[in-house]
Every structure is written in structure tokens, then in C-alpha cells.
């Protein structure tokens, strides 16, 4: 791992948002790299400054009393749909939060070995997906024209994935880049859906039988994998699973 690849991950290391093997790998790099150690120090300095020096505005005295006295005494039954969104995961038990987070780490580590090469590929596509957004290195070739992206990818990667015009379906093409997944050079075709970035990875898997689509969720991202015509496909995004599945079906045509 070199600095250019390590740098985008340093904030996630500080924020404890990395799976454990990532943390260990990055930790090893930082330990031997004064530049990245310095960057991490700076991030920590900004955090400390905000925690220690930034004024924390405490509620003025009397606000609690004013709030409580303004609450209605009797409550009528409330409508089922409140005016604000209540995301489902916000309601997942937090008293269990710590335990669950620990459990999730263990599961991730186990699945990495249990799923064998596929587990490694899933971890790598999520890495590449997050890395592409954090480093602002989303594309090597940035164009919404599929007739530019496809030949560019063919020239740089040993696979020629379908590059489709999906803007009418709500998935405009952003561009393409070369990625490294599980030891393979892979084509990454980048699409967008509203604010969500979708990375579609493809690499050659000659002679292997087709595998139907399979959806998994890791670190808040959905991953759909399938194999068709000797090409391995992984679509990854923070898009809702049903929308990502719609995307995958459009790509698979």
C-alpha cells in the first residue's frame, strides 16, 4: 500500500468506520510512513480542537422547564405517518448497538474466509467504491457517452463489459476507470442515480459457468454480484437494494 492509496482512508480510520482487516493493513502502513502519520495527526488535531476549543452551546437555564410546560397534557392518538421520515435503521436497537457493531466485525472477518474468493472480492469492490468517492477519483475517463467509455475500457482492461445508456431509466452514465479487485484488473463503469454513485465492476472469468444475481449488504452498501458469459460482475452503491437490483437487471439486459 502506498501513500496515494492510503490517504483517502485515513479519515475512515480515525472515524472507526473501517472493517478490522482494513484497519490493520492501514495501521501497518501508517506506522512506517511519516507522511501519513502526520496526516492522521492533523485529523486528530482538528478533532481535538473541535471537541476542546469549539464553544459548546448548552441549553439556557429554564429551557427545559419551558419545554415541559408547553407540552400538551393529554395526547390524542397520533396519525400513523408523521411528517418526518423515520429511517428504519434508526429504530434498530441501540442499547444493543455496541454489541451488534462488535458482532458485525466478527461476521465480516468470518465471511471473508467463509466465502473464500467471493468474500475477498466483495470486500475489495466496497473498498474501491468508497475509495473512488473519498479520493474524488471516480473516473479515468469522464463522459456520459457510452461510445467513448466502452472503447477506452477495452483498451485498458482485458474485458469489455456492456456500457449502456441508462439515463432514460434514471441511471446516467458518469464514466469509467480501471480498478483492482481481488488481484484482477477490472473495469469500473460509473453511473449515478440521484445523489447515489453506482460502481459496476467487471472482470474476465473465462470458462466459469453463469451465476445468478445475489445481493449482500456490507458497511451500509449494497452489493449485487453475478456471472454471465465468462465475466464477473459486481454492482455496489448506497442505493436501496430494490433500486440497485433494478439497475443490475437493466445492465444485464
Amino acid at each position, binding site marked *: 500500500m502506498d501513500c496515494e492509496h492510503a490517504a483517502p482512508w485515513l479519515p475512515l480510520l480515525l472515524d472507526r468506520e473501517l472493517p478490522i482487516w482494513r484497519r490493520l493493513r492501514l495501521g501497518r502502513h501508517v506506522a512506517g510512513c511519516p507522511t501519513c502519520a502526520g496526516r492522521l495527526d*492533523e485529523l486528530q*488535531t482538528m478533532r481535538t480542537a*473541535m471537541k476542546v476549543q*469549539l464553544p459548546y452551546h448548552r441549553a439556557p437555564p429554564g*429551557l427545559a422547564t419551558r419545554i415541559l410546560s408547553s407540552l400538551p397534557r393529554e395526547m390524542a392518538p397520533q396519525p400513523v405517518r408523521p411528517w418526518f421520515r423515520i429511517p428504519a435503521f434508526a429504530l434498530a436497537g*441501540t442499547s444493543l448497538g455496541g454489541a451488534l457493531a462488535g458482532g458485525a466485525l466478527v461476521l465480516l472477518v468470518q465471511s471473508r474466509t467463509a466465502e473464500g474468493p467471493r468474500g475477498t472480492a466483495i470486500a475489495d469492490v466496497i473498498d474501491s467504491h468508497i475509495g473512488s468517492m473519498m479520493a*474524488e477519483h471516480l473516473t479515468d475517463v469522464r463522459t456520459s457517452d457510452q461510445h467513448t467509455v466502452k472503447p477506452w475500457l477495452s483498451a485498458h482492461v482485458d474485458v469489455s463489459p456492456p456500457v449502456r445508456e441508462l439515463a432514460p431509466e434514471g441511471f446516467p452514465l458518469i464514466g469509467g476507470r480501471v480498478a483492482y479487485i481481488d488481484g484482477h484488473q477490472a473495469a469500473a463503469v460509473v453511473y449515478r442515480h440521484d445523489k447515489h454513485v453506482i460502481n459496476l465492476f467487471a472482470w474476465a472469468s473465462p470458462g466459469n459457468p453463469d451465476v445468478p444475481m445475489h445481493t449482500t449488504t456490507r458497511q451500509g452498501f449494497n452489493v449485487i454480484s453475478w456471472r454471465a458469459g465468462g465475466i464477473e460482475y459486481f454492482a455496489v452503491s448506497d442505493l436501496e437494494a430494490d433500486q440497485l437490483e433494478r439497475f443490475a437487471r437493466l445492465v444485464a439486459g
Partner: protein
Amino acid sequence: MPHSGDDRKRRFERLALPHLDAAYNLARWLAGNPADAEDVVQEAYLRAYRYFDAFQGGNFRVWLLTIVRNSFANWVRENRSARMMFVPETPVAETADRDETMWGTSPRDPEALLLDSLDSQMLERLMQQLPSDYREVLLLREVEDLSYKEIATVTDVPIGTVMSRLARARLALRRLWLTETAQEGADGL
């Protein structure tokens, strides 16, 4: 068995009051002044109480901060003519930073951020110079210690947007900080 009104109120007090400082601090940073912050928090608590039955467990602080933020957005809509501290999207800043990574690929600048180089008032001023969505993501991450997923809930954007926005916010704050301390150094000479 349905709770009596008093039971409900006591349960709400027990859950919601411990987070009053967090709610007020967020509102204060969003609204920019104490009077408006207090209005927003009062409104948020009233709404939270009204929809208390919709809270089915989980992280009450995240749930409450989401309501504070929504109440603030509402308040902005209703007071459009009043002072506008809040700009939900900041396209200028987002595009200005688009091509930059946290440090770029060039060698790191010779200066480094030094904790002692910045006092409270300077830091507050720098934070106020940031676009409000940068300020918000920094507060939720660094001061409130929310996870990316929780920040995504509160601010209602995808988790990928939280990550890239946070990276840009840190870059912007770092740049302001370095400019500020370089200025200080020059003034000191």
C-alpha cells in the same frame, strides 16, 4: 396497555431531556443565534413529544437530532424573509473542492496544524465561514460522535455523500486554519 398522559410525559422527559444540550447546540450552530435556536428546539421537542409513539426504540439522540434538523428546515421555510443562515446545498463549495483530495498528490505543505495555534474564538469564526452543510457534518461527527450511518439519518443523504462531504469539510477547515495561522504569523512579525 395504553399509557396514561402522565406516564407518557414522564417517559418522554426521561428520554428527551438528557439530550437537550445536544439539541440546543446543533440548533444554535444551524440558526446562528440563541433566540432562533431556542424556538427551533422548543418546536422540535413539541414534535418529538407528539410523535413519541412512532419512536420504537433505538438511538433516541439520533432520532431527536433528526427532528431538530427537520424543525430547523421548517423554520427556515416559514421565515424565508428573515435572516437566512442555512443553505442546504452549497454547489459552489462542492464544485470548488471537487478535484482535490484531502491533501492532493503533491507533497504535503510544510506547515502543519498545531493545536496551540488556534484559540476558541478563532475556531468559532472559521466554523462560521464554512458552508452550513460542512459545519453540520463536522459537528455531528466530531462533537456529537455520530457514525456515518447516523449522520446519514440525521441529514437525510446517502452514506457515500456523508463520507465525501466530511472529507471536503475537513479539507476546507484545514485550509482556513492554515490561512488563519499564516496570517497570525505575519501579523506577529
